[in-house]
């Protein structure tokens, strides 16, 4: 009887792992479609415009977006090593803390960037180019805020470490890396090209 119960519990834990992974993948497919739609819109504006950026509009300086990119890439790399440590069973939260700090730094760089645009007289209503920059970075930033929330949540999840911990860390990681990839695509297509 006790053996059957233990078997059920083990099965339930295994099930929880699979379920949360499926749920995160489906969620990321959904978010992926949202950003894909935005990028499709960008492509249409970009390729149907006679000149890009549109007349009277200059591309913003690459400095802050590049810093944002470096910060988010670094945060992903650090998170990956943190994830490896968790799998190995090492209770070292420094990686998580650094990811969180870099995530906040990314948000700060975004605020500075929006501020810079404003100081150059580029407002959200200043035409399609400005609309794209502001709206897309807003939507991405909203997801970053959600990602930061998940990182903070991980602290409490790590307190009661069990067989699910690695799955939780992996799933939050999927979300965080996804946001990094989205940012890199936006950086290259909107700011660089």
């Amino acid at each position, binding site marked *: 009887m006790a053996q059957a119960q233990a078997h*059920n519990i083990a*099965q*339930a*834990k*295994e*099930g*929880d792992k*699979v*379920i949360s992974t*499926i*749920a995160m993948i*489906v*969620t990321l*497919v*959904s*978010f*992926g*479609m*949202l*950003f*894909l*739609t*935005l990028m*499709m*819109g960008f492509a*249409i*504006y970009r390729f*149907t*415009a006679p000149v890009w*950026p*549109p*007349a*009277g*509009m200059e591309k913003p300086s690459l400095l802050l977006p590049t810093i944002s990119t470096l910060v988010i890439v670094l945060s992903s790399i650090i998170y990956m090593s943190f994830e490896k440590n968790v799998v190995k069973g090492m209770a070292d939260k420094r990686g998580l803390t650094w990811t969180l700090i870099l995530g906040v730094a990314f948000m700060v760089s975004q605020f500075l960037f929006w501020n810079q645009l404003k100081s150059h007289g580029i*407002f*959200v*209503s*200043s*035409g*399609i*180019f*400005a*609309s794209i920059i*502001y*709206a897309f970075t*807003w*939507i991405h930033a909203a997801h970053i805020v959600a990602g930061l929330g998940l990182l903070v949540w991980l602290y409490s999840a790590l307190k009661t470490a069990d067989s699910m911990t690695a799955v939780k860390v992996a799933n939050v990681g999927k979300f965080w890396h996804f946001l990094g990839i989205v940012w890199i695509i936006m950086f290259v297509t909107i700011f660089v090209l």
Partner: protein
Amino acid sequence: MAFFEQEIHDAPTTFLSKYVFSFDHKVIAKQFLWYGIAFLGIGGMMALLIRWTLAFPGEPFPVIGPMLFPHTGGVVPPDTYAMLFTLHGTIMIFFAITPILIGAFGNYCIPLLIGARDMVFPTLNMLSFWLAFVSAVLLLASLFTPLGGAAGGWTSYPTLSTLIGSAGVGQTLWCLSLFVLGVSSTMGAVNYIATIITLRAPGMGYFDMPLTIWGLWLTAILNAIFLPVLGAGLLLLTFDRVFGTTFFLAGAAATSGSGDPVLFQHVFWIFGHPEVYILILPAWGIVSDLLSFFARKPAFGAKATALAMTSITILSTLVYGHHMYSTQMSPLLTQSFMMLTMTISIPSAVFFANWLGTLWKGAIRFQTPMLFSLGVVFVFGLGGLTGLYLATVSTDLYLHDTYFVVGHFHYTMAASVLLGGFAATYFWFPKMFGRMMNETLGKWHFWISMIGLNGIFMGMMIIGHAGMHRRIYNPFVYEFLQNLIPLNMFITISALTMGAAQLFFVYNFVYSMFKGPIATQNPWEVGTLEWTIPSPAPHYNFKEVPVVKCGPHEFGNPNLSGKDFQYQTEELVRA
């Protein structure tokens, strides 16, 4: 195979935990059912106001007209007319049909039909309903804003839906409402997909799932993929309206780069065409099962039906352009979209033929759920065939924006989905409430509804073919349309008939819930898992998780004695 067995949760004890903030999929299903039926009533009343205006232009709507529009003496004003058809479409699609078929029957059927105790994420499920509730509040609140609700059509094309076309807050609330509803539906989709993959009872392979589950599963996949596409469009439209971005504003080119109103149409239909299947797939699944149950025959080509539904799901993602033939799309693209759209006919024909194969030489029991299922076969056949004219570029250019389109999509999306919803309601009512609905009233409901809806939608196709344009407040200012007034009166009388038929349903539903004859465990003599447990289903569904040993449509096995069906938990009887 099930990955694990969910534990039996304690029964809720307080009123709030039992009926309001319930985690139980069956209670959430009922909440979605009330929600959908309430909006069916509101959307239906709006349809009657629209129809009255077209049949009797300038005449006050009887009884409630003077209360609703006192400043015009009860006549529907032109600006309100645009708002009415906008909200009628929005409400019926997003707030009536979606909650009934996906919210109510998705929630009710998935765990019960796959042998699970609940959804994998009960809390997410509850949140999904309450977010849908918030969305409804936002939509209804828009009616009480100074310039009234959204009036840019249910598709809300810019520039009608930008500040240039709709200045009020109503359209912004419409966008927000649909965005919130999209989040709610995505939460539901995550839950449905994960539940079906991981919580199927031991022994239940994908092809042992009832076709109802196939329909709901494919729907959830489409929802997860395509709702965010609409979400992106709605976000950008909201930004245009609230923050002054210029995504969908044409004419901004002169100063600083151009927006593109047609982009919204692309985004809308990339979502919108799969949405047609989001609505119809659950109905197809339910009907495929019910035809087999009531014909007392195995579903003909059940695997092929499931695969045909899957093919249609995939193809549905590639054909959105047929909604936009008249938007100066490249002729090369229109041809491609026409080809792809026509290709959908092939899997559609497969499962339609399978429906007929299931019925062929069946020992059909003409009970109410079966009548409604047969109704779906009939109206979907008509809707599907009339779709061919709209899929073809040359005929679409003539028929586009006429009432032919309205007739076609009401046959496919409204009539067949609505009848499918009624079939499901009559069929699962005993399991939901432990009582039977009245068969005679059900049959009256069916026949009068069928007469009414065919009068409406066939009439619409005729007036559309005669050139009557959609969306016009008083089309009869055009002399060539004046001879269509009698036909419009006929359509309106049909609509009133259809509306009156629903009174049979409402009375039957409410009366049977409290006073209907007590239902047995398996009143329809069907073998799927939900009929192996008492009616109404207990809060934990299955005391022991069932082990599945055969398919869901094992009827009329000549080796069986004493009954003509097998439970899925029984070993298949062989000679």
